[in-house]
């Protein structure tokens, strides 16, 4: 298993996702002789998992069953241990496209946080690109290094524990793209510019508050960035379900009662029916805001 390369079958040391049903899942590290508790009973790694294919159905000790899934960055985002607020796949997809990431891209990121975006970046820039990620919180930086090793992507990433606003990314003129998710991104724009390739590149800053965006846009303009563009993306997931609507009963004109059976309306009195159909129902609540994404281009001139 590696987050950047699909490998069969399930092996000792892999990180896999145990899927219990409808958004309920968790990650597990496969260990020879290890076992995992689920609400459906125990899963024994050696007999139930190792050697099986990803996507297999595994019956637990109590008779219930689960699916074992290959870990993608998106599944990881849904299941990773939170050390900070994390970026979700809707924002990540936009960041990836708008920063023009692809195999071979060199990317600088700060902060690493819980590594949600980092995993997605590494997946996209592999096998020839690289991620330089900076995290000012020491404990988090160490945990991230550990996770990257566990997920077999450590050759594609370098984690540094420092303050990007003070000391930058520790690299100069090598990045195609820079991503900032820090409280005061405007203080890091100079460092971002320095990290980008001489011939130019793209930068993105994620901020929850509009005031942060305003200061960042000002700093981007002052540093000569162009194509400055702020956007927001929201996800609405529809709940697909069967709907039953009662059909109103309008009664029957008195004189026609039980006389004219095959009338055009065919609505016998006191027999209200029900209309059935499938529908996508909008959720009562959804995520209303994660943050503003500000993108800009550094040109050669």
């Amino acid at each position, binding site marked *: 298993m590696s987050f950047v390369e699909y490998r069969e079958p399930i092996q000792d040391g892999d990180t896999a996702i145990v899927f219990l049903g409808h958004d309920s899942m968790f990650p597990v590290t496969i260990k020879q002789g290890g076992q995992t508790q689920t609400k459906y009973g125990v899963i024994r790694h050696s007999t139930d998992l190792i050697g099986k294919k990803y996507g297999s159905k595994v019956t637990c000790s109590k008779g219930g069953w689960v699916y074992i899934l290959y870990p993608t960055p998106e599944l990881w985002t849904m299941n990773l241990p939170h050390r900070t607020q994390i970026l979700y796949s809707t924002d990540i997809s936009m960041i990836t496209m708008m920063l023009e990431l692809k195999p071979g891209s060199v990317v600088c990121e700060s902060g690493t946080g819980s590594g949600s975006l980092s995993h997605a970046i590494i997946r996209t820039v592999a096998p020839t690109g690289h991620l330089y990620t900076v995290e000012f919180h020491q404990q988090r930086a160490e945990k991230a290094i550990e996770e990257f090793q566990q997920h077999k992507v450590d050759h594609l990433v370098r984690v540094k524990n420092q303050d990007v606003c003070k000391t930058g990314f520790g690299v100069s003129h090598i990045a195609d793209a820079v991503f900032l998710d820090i409280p005061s991104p405007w203080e890091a724009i100079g460092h971002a510019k320095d990290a980008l390739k001489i011939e130019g590149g793209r930068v993105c800053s994620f901020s929850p*508050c509009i005031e942060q965006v305003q200061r960042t846009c000002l700093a981007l303009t002052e540093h000569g960035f162009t194509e400055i563009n702020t956007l927001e993306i929201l996800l609405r997931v529809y709940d697909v379900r069967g709907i039953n609507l009662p059909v109103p009963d*309008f009664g*029957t004109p008195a004189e026609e009662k039980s006389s004219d059976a095959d009338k055009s309306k065919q*609505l016998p009195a006191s027999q*209200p029916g029900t209309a059935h159909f499938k529908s996508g129902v909008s*959720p009562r*609540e959804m*995520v209303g*805001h994660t943050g503003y994404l500000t993108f800009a281009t550094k040109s050669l001139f």
Partner: protein
Amino acid sequence: MWLWQSYNVCIFSSRKVIFEKQWIYLDNAIGKHYGTTFEITAGGNLQTKKNEIAAAEPKEAGADNRNIVDDGKSQKLTRDDIEALKEKGIKGQEIVQQLIENSTTFRDKTEFAQEKYIKKKKKKYEANISIVKPSTRILAMMYYAREPGKICQLRYDTLAQMLTLGNIHAGSQVIVMETCAGLLLGSVMERMGGYGSVIQMYPGTGPVRAATDCFGFPKSFYKTLYEFPLSKVESLISGTFSAHRSVHAEQDSVQGDEESNGSNAEKQEPAQDIEEDSSPATEAESTVNSNQPENQEEMEVTGEENNEKGQNLEKKQIAMEKKRKQDERRKREAEAAVLLQNKNADGHPLIHPMCLVFQPLLECYTKLRERGGVINLKLSETWLRNYQVLPDRSHPKLVMSGGGGYLLYGITVARETAKPNIRCPEKTEEPAPKKLKVAELES
């Protein structure tokens, strides 16, 4: 009268209510102005509270949260300590202050995180309520927040649009058909201020007005309110309607036959005929899996008077009262029938069903287009975003409503061949006017 805690409001009509699992005694509130804020004491009594603006603002804050190690040990007060404080009758505000002082990480948190912490703790330990006057705004927001299922998830902005697009105002003649616990009916009545007339069309055994009665309308408003059963619409149209047949006898037969329900999607059709011919109508269609349990609670039309008179009557008096009400009811029904028959179908009015799901309105749209007599039909949805506006911390609220229902509305006009008469045969599906079809295609 109303209890208000953020948007969490609930009704009371006695001096003792249960709210958020706590008994509250309202004696101290009587005689106070609407809008007064109270703190709930340990015993459940109310104590007037001065509105404090931005109390307990954090003074010292870390620049970021890099030094915070989350080990679950940052709060030195134990659960037992807090319970002890509560039992001593210490007020919520003081408990929150003590929590802050006993947090080892509070000072290292960013201002933003401090704010969040205080807000969370305040909500948990401080029990403030305000008593406010009921209004469409208050009731619509309350129902949407606390009991959305009862009002078919009709969001308050969607309701607001129905009232405005429907041109509801003093002197209007409105038909309301809804399954929103009477919220829509109440809001229509508020906008009419006792002028004009409202006919509530109801399915089942009686009109539902649980929310309507919460508006606290003066008695006079109810004189402009009529009700008419959906099940008599066909007979009204065919001219065989008689208000003198026993209401209850009919109801029994309805309930007896309910086991043998057929399910035929085609049957929805007549619903639209009604809307059209009885315009101006404001209609909220029943939605998701609504089996209309409210319809089972037989609503009292004259419930207002009931509160004052009904207490000490003996059995005979009750029976007489019942008879009187039944007669009253039949009389009102007959009046409603006359109003319905005199209604002018054409002109300015708008119709707009609201539905939480899309498909029924799509069908409605198509049927109305085919039938004609309605122009500028629109099928729409609104997005509502609430904002947090605070110095250096402004952004849209982190949670938003995913949907407030879809709306279909248009303007009724003269139909081509049929006369603007409620008794015209609606079974003849007429082709839509040619020109209109062209306009539609152009779009």
